[in-house]
Each structure stands twice: as C-alpha cells, then as structure tokens.
C-alpha cells in the first residue's frame, strides 16, 4: 500500500494543536510529575514496560503530556527512546540477586523462605473508598506514623537472606531438568528485522514490551481453550534488581570491574506447565516445563499472561492461534496496533475514491444490464 503525502490544512492543524494545549490547562489544575510518580505507580510501570524504557520520571512526564492516554504516552516514550545513544550493554542479571518485596507461590503452600505477600490488593474488597475524596496531608501523616510505629523493631543483621526459586523444589525431586545456560547473543527486536521462526530471546522481548491488555487477552484466550497451556503459577516475584555495566573490552571482562548503574523493579513469573511426552517405548510420561514472564515494574497479570504465551510459543506444532508466533507477537505491540488502527483516521481520499469508483461502476453495469 502506498500513501501519497498529503499537503495542506497547516492552519487547521496548528489551531487544533493550540486547542489541545488549551484543553489540557483550561481548568487551571496542575499535576506535578513527582505526584504522578508516587501516586500512579501502576500506570508509570505499564508505560515503562510497554515503551521498553526504564525511567519513572520520563514515563510520568509522558503520562502528563498525554493526559493519561496509555497509547499516546507509550508512543511518546518510544519515540524519545529511539533518539537516545546506546553506549553500553548491561551485564546479564541473576534473578537470585533480586531484593524481594513480594514473592508467592500458588503451587506450594510451604515454600522455603515462606510466602511474602508484600503490598497487594489481591485479597481486598473492591469497594470505592469515598474517604479519598477529601484526603488530607495531615491525616496521611498520622497514618504513616501509625504504620511505622506498629512495625516490629528493626534488627541489624549482616546476613543476606536469599529466597530460593520454587522450581528448585521440583529440581530436587527430579521433576524438572537442569538446563545449560543459553549464552547465545540475544536478538535486539528494536534494531533487527523480524523473521519467523524467531529465537526465544526475541519472543520474550516482544512479549515483555507488549500492550498489557493485549498480552492478557491472548493469555486468557489460551487458558479458555484457544490454546493448549493451562499452567500453575510456580512463583511470582516482585522486587528490585541491580544493573551493572562493564566498560572493559569483551576479551577481558572481570565481574569485579563492573559499575553499578542503578536498579530496576521487575515482576517475574515462573509458571509450571505439565507436558506429556512419549519415550522410545511409546510410554507416555508427564513432566513439567516452565513458562517465563517478566516485565518492568509491578504488573503481575501481564507477567503471568506472558508466561502462558511463552509456553504456547514454545510449542508451535499445536494448532491454535495463540501458539502461532506471528499471530501473537505482531499483534500485541502497543505502538504498532494503535498506530495502524488510528492511521485509518488520516486522509485516504484517493484510496476511498477508487473503491467508490469500483462500486459505482458495478452498480452502473448492473443497471444497464437490467434495462436491457
């Protein structure tokens, strides 16, 4: 499809932009970027995740500019991301280094280290809290102090507590194999042309930057029967993970020479999926495979849905759309899908004119043949 560049309408477009700016400020309310960062954390996380750019400040700024429109905020941040120089590649991270704020398992009640709920609305009644209409800083201050004073006394410890992965449980029982680390250079989906079938590194990247709603919908479709994966959530983790870069040339990398550049918050999910395989004697055996989901910030639904889709795409032989790489990966991207849908609003005068001509001509032909 080719588009002819449209010229004209400059004044109308300028006036429209002026009106848009006016609409944003006309009620004379100003929301600070800092306020968005600390009170709309979930929204900020989603924008960072779908934009593939970890910066709460810029995400909050994008949300402010886009007046809360997700697709617009993600578009802005992706556009900004594409202008940034790429100076270093960070070291790969070990999720065992995560500073865990929340970690639960739906597969085992008693897990080493215990279930750590953290802050979650999962077990809350969904009732509108009308007290928030007149929230006061003074009252909040009181609540903060109350919360802090009720905490158990702080114990200084030098011991670093690590939460072992729940999957280690299954490994010990021989129910889950230990894989060799895959050290293949990952594909960068933002730089390379995508060709199917594609490596898992690319699939995971495209899933993790997918639109939350789209990833969730397709994951749900797979659960409901338009797919063949029904997992049990082995582990959900949320916490911060340190990021390091190494400035040495690749030949002489020494982990002690790495620079710590900050930390990012991640949600991570490992889903256990029972898979039937036949051995050489034709006997069916059941074992487990893992579906993996991870995304920037706190977004557990997306991470779980991603883990389902990851497992689906590992089995392309199954005949469901959710097991089809091209179907899943090319349709979950926010900028691609919202961009293509909304481009339909742009002038298609010539395209439509030719369709109209075709319809008129067939009608004319029919009319003439009827009168004959």
């Amino acid at each position, binding site marked *: 499809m080719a588009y002819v560049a449209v010229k004209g309408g400059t004044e109308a477009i300028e006036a429209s932009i002026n009106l848009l700016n006016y609409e944003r400020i006309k009620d004379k309310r100003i929301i600070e970027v800092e306020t968005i960062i600390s009170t709309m954390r979930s929204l900020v996380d989603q924008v960072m995740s779908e934009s593939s750019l970890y910066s709460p400040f810029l995400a909050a700024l994008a949300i402010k500019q886009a007046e809360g429109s997700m697709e617009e905020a993600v578009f802005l941040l992706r556009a900004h991301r594409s*202008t940034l*120089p*790429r*100076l*270093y*590649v960070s070291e790969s991270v070990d999720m065992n280094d995560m500073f865990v704020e929340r970690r639960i398992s739906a597969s085992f009640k008693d897990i080493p280290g215990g279930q750590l709920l953290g802050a979650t609305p999962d077990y809350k009644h969904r009732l509108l809290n009308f007290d928030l209409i007149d929230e006061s800083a003074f009252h909040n201050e009181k609540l903060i102090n109350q919360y802090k004073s009720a905490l158990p006394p702080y114990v200084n410890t030098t011991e670093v507590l690590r939460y072992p992965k729940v999957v280690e449980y299954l490994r010990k029982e021989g129910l889950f194999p230990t894989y060799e680390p895959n050290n293949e250079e990952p594909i960068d989906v933002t*730089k390379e*042309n995508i060709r199917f079938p594609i490596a898992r590194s690319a699939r995971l990247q495209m899933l993790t930057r997918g639109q939350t709603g789209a990833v969730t919908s397709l994951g749900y479709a797979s659960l409901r029967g338009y797919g063949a994966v029904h997992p049990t959530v082995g582990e959900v983790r949320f916490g911060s993970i340190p990021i390091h870069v190494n400035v040495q040339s690749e030949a002489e990398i020494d982990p002690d020479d790495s620079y710590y550049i900050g930390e990012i918050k991640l949600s991570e999910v490992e889903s256990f999926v029972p898979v039937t395989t036949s051995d050489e004697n034709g006997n069916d055996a059941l074992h487990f495979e893992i579906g993996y989901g991870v995304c920037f910030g706190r977004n557990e639904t997306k991470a779980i849905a991603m883990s389902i889709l990851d497992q689906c795409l590992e089995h392309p032989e199954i005949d469901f759309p959710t097991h089809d790489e091209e179907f899943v990966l090319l349709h979950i991207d926010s900028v691609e899908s919202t961009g293509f849908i909304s481009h339909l609003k742009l002038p298609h005068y010539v395209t439509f004119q030719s369709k109209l001509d075709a319809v008129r001509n067939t009608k004319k032909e029919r009319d003439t043949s009827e009168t004959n």
Partner: protein
Amino acid sequence: MVTDQVHYTQNVYRDVLNAMSRPGDIVCLVEADSSFAKTFNCFRATSSLLFTLLDHDVTYHLISDDSVNMSTMITAYTLARHVPVEEADFIIVLMDAQESEVEHALKTCKVGTLRDPHLSATWIVETEPLQLGKEIKLTGPGIETETLLQVQLAQTFWDIRKERLSEFPLGLDIIFTNRRNEVLCMPRTTIVEKVG
C-alpha cells in the same frame, strides 16, 4: 551540559536529515560550543556528525594518515568500534586520506542486501572546497532540475560509486563535509554526471 550535547546532536541530526532529502544542497550545521567541536582533529562538521551518528551499536572505518590515533579517540568518545572496511556501518574519510585507500574502500564497503538494503555503509567524506560550480551535475529525487557542483574528487571515485549503485536499492549514501561547518548529501538515488 549533558542535555546541551543531546539537544545539539539532535539539531545536527535534523540538519543532516534535511540535507539528505535535498541532495546537492549545501547545508550549514548548527554551531556547537567550542570545546565540543574541537574534540577530534578534523573538520567541525565531521566532529558533529561523529557525535551524532556513532554509538556503541554501530561500527566505523576511518581512512586517514593518522587513523590509529584518531580512531582511538573516536572510539573513546563515541564507544563505536573500529572495524575493517567490509564490515563498517560508517566510513569516515579525512582530508589527509590516500586516494588509493578511498578507492579500495569504495569497492569493498557494504551496500546492503536486497532484503535489508539499509545495512549499507554511510560515508562521511571531508572535502574542499564543496561549492556550486561546473564540475559535476546532480539529478534525481529531491533535486528539482539539476545541481551543478565543484567537488574535488577524482573521476574514478564517481565511476566506482556508479558501479556500486547499479543494483538499486543496494548502494551507499555519502555526506560531504567542509571546513566551513557545511554538509552536502548524496544518497544512493542521486545521479552524478561529469560536466563537459
């Protein structure tokens, strides 16, 4: 200061984009603050392009008498890697380059593949004086009628360029720079003919 650099290189990028869509137009780049522009021992315009276009994700090949010292500097500041000419995303030709070396690079540089024609080399070529004249004639997309130019390059340069562009969309794109902080672009679609 850091944001100054970002905004500055973004302005340079915009200038180059304009120059690329109007091949043969001599475009003056925005002025950098002095310390920034004098980092490398080359034209200011060339420096600006290096800061704008190079980063860790791309490779370059430098053709200069002083290529060892210069490439160490360029890599230190931009983090781009210096590679053999056949692999380079950018080929940088400084004023002191040997003609034979330039010709060899032109013959062997990347021109992309039919599936990925953008994976070709972009050339940054220092030249003098780069002005309107009657030496070569440019025609093609982005040029209303024709542009006549004075560029001091041997005829063989244009011959080899033509040969490497023969299988469109494969080809290479050139950005010329001069001492006056100006650039002139010659994308692969521009047809160059000798006048007279």
